[in-house]
């Protein structure tokens, strides 16, 4: 039940963020679903006792793979699907906590939390980047094959 509520909230956050970035109307639903998939994988990996960094990475990979497929299917730029979907993975709470304890003078814990948030951001970027570069590689090979 708690999981279901979490996933519904992820969907709403993704779709609402999408509206604020002016996503085309027909891509809001797919983008929202990608947000849910990413979050589900993140939570699943965390439940296995892995670090949140790993969960964010795998969540981002899943989002990017599905976004590449959707982009080809709906003939839209990939960025449209990716931009909102990774928002439920953003380590907002960790960033906030690190800022809070830093302001209170707990530098060691603050830096530790900030490092974790930074690693998660890098993990998301790496997840998107790896899939995207593989997709580009196949795209350019396909283009050469056609000629």
């Amino acid at each position, binding site marked *: 039940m708690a999981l279901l*509520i*979490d996933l519904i*909230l*992820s969907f*709403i*956050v993704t*779709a*609402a*963020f999408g*509206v*604020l*970035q*002016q*996503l*085309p*109307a027909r*891509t809001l639903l797919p983008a929202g679903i990608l947000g849910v998939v990413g979050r589900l994988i993140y939570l699943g990996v965390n439940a296995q006792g892995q670090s949140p960094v790993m969960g964010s990475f795998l969540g981002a990979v899943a989002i990017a793979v599905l976004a590449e497929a959707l982009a080809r299917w709906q*003939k*839209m*730029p990939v*960025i*449209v699907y*990716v*931009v*909102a979907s*990774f*928002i*439920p993975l*953003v380590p*907002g*709470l960790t*960033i*906030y906590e690190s*800022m*809070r304890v830093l*302001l209170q003078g707990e530098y060691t814990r603050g830096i530790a939390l900030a490092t974790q948030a930074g690693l998660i*951001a890098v993990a998301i*970027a790496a997840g*998107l*980047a790896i899939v*995207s*570069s593989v997709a*580009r590689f196949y795209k350019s090979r396909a283009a050469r094959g056609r000629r």
Partner: protein
Amino acid sequence: MERHDVLRLAMDAGEIMLVNGGETYRVEDTIRRICQAGGLSGAEAFVTPTGIFLSVDGAGGDQPLSLVRRIPQRTIDLNKIAGVNDFSRRFAAGRMAVDEGMQELAAIRREVTHNHGRTLLASGVGAAAATLLLGGALADLFPAALVGAVTMRLLDRLTVLQTTHFIKEFAGGAIAAVIALLLSEAVRLAGGQAGLLHPDKVILGTLYLLVPGVTFTNAVRDLIAGDLVSGAVRGLDALLVAGALAGGSGFVLAFWGGGF
């Protein structure tokens, strides 16, 4: 004459994409595609987040042409990127006159995807959902919706701040923090039990809507495409915006003291 028009059409298409948050390589690709379809040979485009440089060869006795355009301001409207993307495909595929292309671009520029009402609703609903997702209580639902909607609306109205978006994000963090703390103070004064409202979660929920998502993704995609200058600049931009958001709310929280 005709060559100038094609060049300007390509530049306009690229400008719409870049201004609204398109990736560098996509803008270059679009410009090249339109130039080729318009019969211009040897088109080269160099695009950075702040400007477009475009030139074509002077083959067959023609003069070489070039066009430079500065991009002083950027917003985000992914629907316009999708629109120009689609337009460039159609322009490259079929016989479309340059005039007709110009009209289509003007229409894309004017198009409003989600009006003020819908974005305001999205701000409220989005902030409320993000607050709950981050562990807020049910009592935080309406305060979060209020803080989200009011913050986004105020930022929209404060057009003075749009020019330097670093200040805009800083103000966003500060405004969200002030309203959330005031609300929680009001609940306390009205005799509500302490800790009923979680101002920290409410602030976070609202800040989620200001996360530089497009800039961040573009930085990654630009870097993979080999656009090192654009990628680095955008990465720095995303970092600055995230810092400004945290700084704005942190500034208020630090002054507020006890409630934090």
